């Protein structure tokens, strides 16, 4: 159980980093695209970045509290 939680957290951190980087990169590429849909996409990507960072921090243990076992 404990082991599993550790694996999960490590994977979460990895995924968080990857997504954060990718979404930041995508945001940079799309920065100048015109059109209503693209504006929305940019906002979404920004929030996606935030979410990825949160996932990383949660995996790292800075955010969120873990059951006493962990």
């Amino acid at each position, binding site marked *: 159980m404990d082991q599993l939680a550790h694996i999960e957290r490590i*994977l979460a951190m990895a995924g968080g980093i990857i997504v954060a980087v990718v979404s930041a990169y995508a945001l940079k590429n799309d920065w100048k695209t015109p059109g209503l849909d693209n504006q929305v996409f940019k906002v979404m990507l920004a929030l*996606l970045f935030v979410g990825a960072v949160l996932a990383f921090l*949660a995996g790292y243990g800075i955010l969120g509290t873990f059951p006493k076992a962990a």
Partner: protein
Amino acid sequence: MAVASLAQAGAEFAPHGEVDQLYAETRDLRLLGFLMFLVSDVVLFSSFIFAYLYLRNSGQGWPPPGIGRPDVALAALNSAVLFGSGATMHYALENWKHGKFTRYAAFMIATIILGILFLSGQAVEYTKLYFQEHVSWAGSGIFGASFFTLTGMHGFHVFVGVWYLIVLLLQSVHGVYSKDKYFGLTAGTLYWHFVDVIWVVLFSIFYLI
């Protein structure tokens, strides 16, 4: 075969004339309409989130006695998965715009798989809560009510989204969309991003605060 179907879809598209003026205007309308739909869906979620926060602060302490905090590790992993699917979805659309059908299809499939992974992750969490912590929808006070209602609603949106993406993939394989007429895909991407972004909020309010 896929590539061929894209080529023939492209061939259907005539550079000038009534159809495309009509298509452009139609697309504007449908884009705006779809965004309105998303807006009201956001309001639906926000109302339940308001209810959750209101109940949470109604002075019984949180989490209520007898209920442990939800498992952040699994949730974090799950979130990473869902956010990942957002990224792949984004690139699926990008590749379609640049006419790279195979890459588009690959990213689409990746997105669908990640979506399914997320759902299974949630299933695991639910079973854990139900069988190990005996937390249920109706039986565990306001925690069960707000947690299962909100995450369930979101899960349902993901479930619908997965099917939506599958349909879109099949449609694109059958050449419904062309290099310049792909509003369906745009809408799909919007919807999927919306599902991700809602999860950003749910994840933070349920697991992080």
